[in-house]
C-alpha cells in the first residue's frame, strides 16, 4: 500500500488507470491513494484547509404541496463518517436522491471535489465517484456476485474475466473483513451479505463518496456492529461515508459529524464527539423528548383459553426456505405476542394462514378453541379478526378509491340501499362517528388513497382495523412510516385494544417497539419459532443472534 501510495504521488495517472482494467488486477486504489491531499487516519476529520469531497449549497427541492429540501448546506469530507439524521419525512431521502442524480434540485449548487457539477443521472453520479447503497439493493438475484460486480465496473474490455474480477472482490473483501464468496448466487445471500456485495461493487467501481441509506434496517444487532467497523476502515482509507438514518444510538456510535434535518431544513451540524441523545432527539423533533409508553402491566392469562392457536402448521416442504415449518404458538385474549425476526422468515405466512389467504400443508389453526383451519376469509373477519398487512397498499387498500370508501371496504353490504345504490350519506355518517372517537387524524375523506403518503395510508388502515376494537389483531409493522408522535399514539391504541381483551400478534422490525409493547416475545427464523422470551428478561443481543440463525 505504501509503495503504491508513493507511486501514485509520483505519477498520478498510472494507478487510477490500472484500477480500470481487470487485466492489471491490482487491488483497487482507495481515495487516499489516488488523491494526494487527503490525510490518512484520525486526523482526516479536520475540516479547515482540506477540500470537501462533496459539498452542497442552498439545495432546494419541492414537490406539489411539500418543500422537501429547504436551502440545505452540507459538506462531506474524505475520511469522515457523516451522519444525516432526521425523522421520516424530514427530507433525507429526497436529499440523497438529489446526490445520486435521481432528482434534480430546483435551486442550489453541488460541487464534487471543489468543481461545480450537475448530477443528471445515477450513472453520471457514479462516474463522478458517488456510490449509493440503497435500502433495497440494486443487485440482480439470479446473477452471481462476480457478475453483479462486473455489471458496474467502469470498463473491463470485451470479455468477462471471471477469475480476475473474483480476485478483486476477494481482495476488497479480505481488506474490510467482509467474507464474501464471489461465486455465490446473489439471490442465495442474506440481506446483510447483499449489503456487503453492494459495498464491494461501489468500491471496485471506484466510488469515493459512499452513501448508505438506512443501512442498518436490514441488519441484526451484531451485524450492525460489523458494519460500523467497516465504516471505520473505509474512513481510514480516505472514503467519505454519508450515513442516513433516524436511529440516534447508531449515529452516536459511529458518526464524526452529524447533520440534523427537520422539515427539510438543516437544524444543526455538530461534531459526533460530545453529542448527546437527548440533544439530538430534541433537535430532530423540535420539542422535548416524548415519554416512551411502556407496557408495565403484565397480564395473567385468563382461563377461557387461547384466542388464536397454531398447532404444528406447515406451509412448505422441509427444504423450501420460504414458508412455515411446523409453527406452534398461541395468543391469549388480552395479550400482545411480539414476533421478532428479520423480514421474510415466515412472519407474513402467519397472518396469511390465519386469515385463510394461504393454504396449509398440514397442522391446524384454532380460533377461540374451535378448529378454524378450513374457514373462509369472510367468516374469519366476521369472527373479529383484524389484519394490518405488511404490504398495506397491495393487500389492504384499493389505491384508486377514496379514503372513505376504503374505510368501509369490508362492510359495503351494510350501505347497499335496496341492493343497488350505495348509501353514501349513511356511509359518511358512520365513518364520521367512528373517527370522532379515534385519536389519529386522517387525510380528507374524499382524497384518493393513491395520492397519500405512506404514513397517511398507514393511518387509514389503522383507523379501519383498530376502530372496531377487534378480538384478534394481526399487526405487521403498525408504526411503519409514522412520525414519532403518531407512532406513540398508535402504540397506545394497540395497548388499549389489548386491555379491552383483544389478542394481538405484533410483527415489527423495531426491536425496541417489540420490547416495549409485548407481553411475550417469540423469535422467528426460517419459518420456525426458535425462541420465546419475557421481554423483561431477554436481551437485545440474545434475540439478535437468534434472528440471524445462531443457536444458543
Amino acid at each position, binding site marked *: 500500500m505504501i509503495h503504491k501510495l508513493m507511486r501514485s504521488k509520483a505519477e498520478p495517472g498510472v494507478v487510477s488507470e490500472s484500477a480500470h482494467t481487470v487485466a492489471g488486477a491490482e487491488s483497487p486504489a482507495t481515495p487516499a491513494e489516488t488523491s494526494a491531499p487527503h490525510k490518512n487516519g484520525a486526523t482526516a476529520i479536520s475540516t479547515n484547509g482540506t477540500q470537501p469531497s462533496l459539498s452542497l449549497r442552498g439545495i432546494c427541492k419541492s414537490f406539489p404541496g411539500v418543500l422537501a429540501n429547504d436551502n440545505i448546506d452540507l459538506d462531506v469530507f474524505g475520511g469522515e463518517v457523516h451522519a444525516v439524521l432526521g425523522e421520516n419525512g424530514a427530507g433525507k431521502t429526497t436529499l440523497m436522491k438529489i446526490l445520486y442524480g435521481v432528482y434534480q434540485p430546483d435551486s442550489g449548487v453541488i460541487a464534487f471535489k471543489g468543481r461545480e457539477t450537475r448530477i443528471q443521472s*445515477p*450513472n453520471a453520479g*457514479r462516474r463522478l465517484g458517488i456510490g449509493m447503497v440503497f435500502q433495497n439493493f*440494486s*443487485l*440482480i*438475484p*439470479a*446473477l452471481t456476485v462476480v*457478475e453483479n460486480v*462486473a*455489471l*458496474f465496473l467502469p470498463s*473491463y*474490455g*470485451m*470479455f*468477462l474475466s*471471471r477469475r480476475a474480477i473474483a480476485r478483486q472482490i476477494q481482495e476488497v473483501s479480505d481488506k474490510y473483513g467482509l467474507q464474501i464468496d464471489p461465486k455465490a448466487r446473489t439471490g442465495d445471500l442474506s440481506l446483510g451479505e447483499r449489503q456487503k456485495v453492494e459495498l464491494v461493487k461501489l468500491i471496485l467501481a471506484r466510488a469515493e463518496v459512499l452513501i448508505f441509506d438506512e443501512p442498518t434496517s436490514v441488519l441484526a444487532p451484531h451485524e450492525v456492529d460489523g458494519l460500523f467497523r467497516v465504516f471505520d476502515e473505509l474512513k481510514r482509507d480516505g472514503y467519505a461515508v454519508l450515513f442516513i438514518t433516524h436511529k440516534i444510538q447508531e449515529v452516536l456510535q459511529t458518526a464524526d459529524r452529524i447533520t440534523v434535518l427537520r422539515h427539510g431544513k438543516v437544524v444543526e451540524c455538530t461534531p459526533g464527539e460530545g453529542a448527546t441523545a437527548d440533544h439530538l432527539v430534541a433537535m430532530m423533533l423540535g420539542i422535548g423528548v416524548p415519554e416512551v409508553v411502556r407496557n408495565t402491566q403484565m397480564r395473567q392469562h385468563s382461563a377461557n383459553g387461547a384466542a388464536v392457536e397454531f398447532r404444528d402448521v406447515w406451509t412448505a416442504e422441509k427444504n423450501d426456505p420460504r414458508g412455515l415449518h411446523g409453527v406452534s404458538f398461541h395468543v391469549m385474549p388480552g395479550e400482545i405476542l411480539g414476533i421478532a425476526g428479520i423480514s421474510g422468515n415466515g412472519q407474513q405466512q402467519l397472518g396469511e394462514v390465519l386469515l385463510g389467504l394461504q393454504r396449509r400443508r398440514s397442522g391446524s389453526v384454532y380460533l377461540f378453541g374451535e378448529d378454524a383451519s378450513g374457514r373462509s376469509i369472510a367468516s374469519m373477519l366476521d369472527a373479529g379478526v383484524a389484519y394490518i398487512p405488511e404490504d398495506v397498499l397491495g393487500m389492504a387498500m384499493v389505491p384508486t378509491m377514496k379514503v372513505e370508501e376504503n374505510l368501509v371496504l369490508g362492510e359495503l353490504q351494510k350501505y347497499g340501499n335496496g341492493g343497488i345504490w350505495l348509501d353514501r350519506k349513511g356511509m359518511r355518517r358512520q365513518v364520521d362517528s367512528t373517527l370522532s372517537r379515534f385519536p389519529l387524524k386522517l387525510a380528507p375523506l374524499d382524497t384518493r388513497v393513491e395520492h397519500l403518503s405512506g404514513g397517511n395510508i398507514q393511518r387509514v388502515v389503522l383507523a379501519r382495523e383498530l376502530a372496531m376494537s377487534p378480538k384478534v389483531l394481526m399487526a405487521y409493522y403498525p408504526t411503519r412510516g409514522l412520525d414519532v408522535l403518531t407512532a406513540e399514539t398508535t402504540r397506545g391504541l394497540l395497548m388499549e385494544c389489548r386491555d379491552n381483551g383483544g389478542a394481538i400478534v405484533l410483527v415489527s422490525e423495531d426491536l425496541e417497539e417489540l420490547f416495549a409493547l409485548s407481553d411475550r416475545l417469540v423469535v422467528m427464523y426460517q419459518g420456525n419459532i426458535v425462541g420465546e422470551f419475557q421481554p423483561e428478561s431477554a436481551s437485545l443481543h440474545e434475540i439478535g443472534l437468534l434472528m440471524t440463525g445462531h443457536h444458543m
Partner: protein
Amino acid sequence: MSTFWIVLGGAFTGAVGPGISVLYATYGELITERAGRINLGTEGCMLMGACFGFIATVETGSATLGVLAAMLAGSMLSLIFAYLVIFRDTNQLATGFALTMFGAGVTAWAGRDYVDSLIGGLNPISIPLLSQIPLVGKALFRQDILVYLAYALGPLLWFGLYYTKWGLSLRAVGESVTVAFAAGRNPALIQVAAIAFGGALSGLGGAQLSLAFTHTWSEGMTVGRGFIAVGLVIFGMWSPVRAMAGAFLFGGAIGLQLQLQSVGAPVSPFILDMFPYVITLAVLALWSGAASRAMPEGLRTVLRGGT
C-alpha cells in the same frame, strides 16, 4: 428385430436434418428471451427466412445470398415486433402471434410463383474420417454447412452469454431493466438488438429448411416449428447447449415418425404426424418445475400472468 434397428438408425439419421431448422429458431428465441422478451413471431420469422431465402436463391442462383436474404427477412419481421412491444408497449404474446399470421400471409403471397421452382441449394459436405464412424458418422458429419454452423453456434452462444460483456448486459436486462439502466446500459437498445438477432437466426432456420433440407418452397412449410422452438427454449432452461439436446430430441421424433411410416407401421399417418409435438409437450410438462428457477425475471410476468 432387424426392422427395429433400421427404424432406430433411421430415426437417428433423421434427427439432425429436421432438428437443425428448429435449433436455429431456438437459439434465436433464446437470445430474445434472455433479454426479457418472448417473441411468438418466431414461426413467422422462419417462414420469412424459408420463403425469401428460397426466392433469393432462385433469382440469383447463389445459396449464400439466399441465406443472407433469409436472415434479413427474419430480422425485418422481428424488428416490427420490437417496435410494437418496446416502443408502443403492446402485449407481447398477442403481437408475436399476429406477426406469425402476418408472416404466413406475406410468404404465401410472395412465394406463390416459386412453389414449383427447383434449386441446387445447399448440399452435404462430408467430413473425412468423422463421417466414416459407424451408425452416427453419416448422420452427424455428412451434412450441409448450416448444420455444422449450428453445432458450433451452441457453445459459441453459451460463451457469449457468460463470458462477454455483451452477454452480461443482455442477461442483466432480461433480469432487471431497472438495475441494467442504473448500471449505465440502454435496455431498449439491447432488447431491440436481441430481438433482431433472434429474428435473423429464426430466418436462418427457415432457410436451412427450404435451401438444404427440402430444396423446395411450399406455403406454411414450417408447420409450427417456430412454436416448438419457443417450447424448446423452456425445455433447455435458457441454455444454448441444453437447447441443442432438445432440438435433436424433436428432430429424432420426426425421424422416427418418417421411419415408422416407411416401414408401414399399422398406425394412421395423421397420428404419426402428431408424434413429435406430443413428445415435446410431454417433456415440457415434466420439466416446467425445474425450469421455473432458471427463468429470466423479466419473463415472469408474461409467462406467469403476473405476480
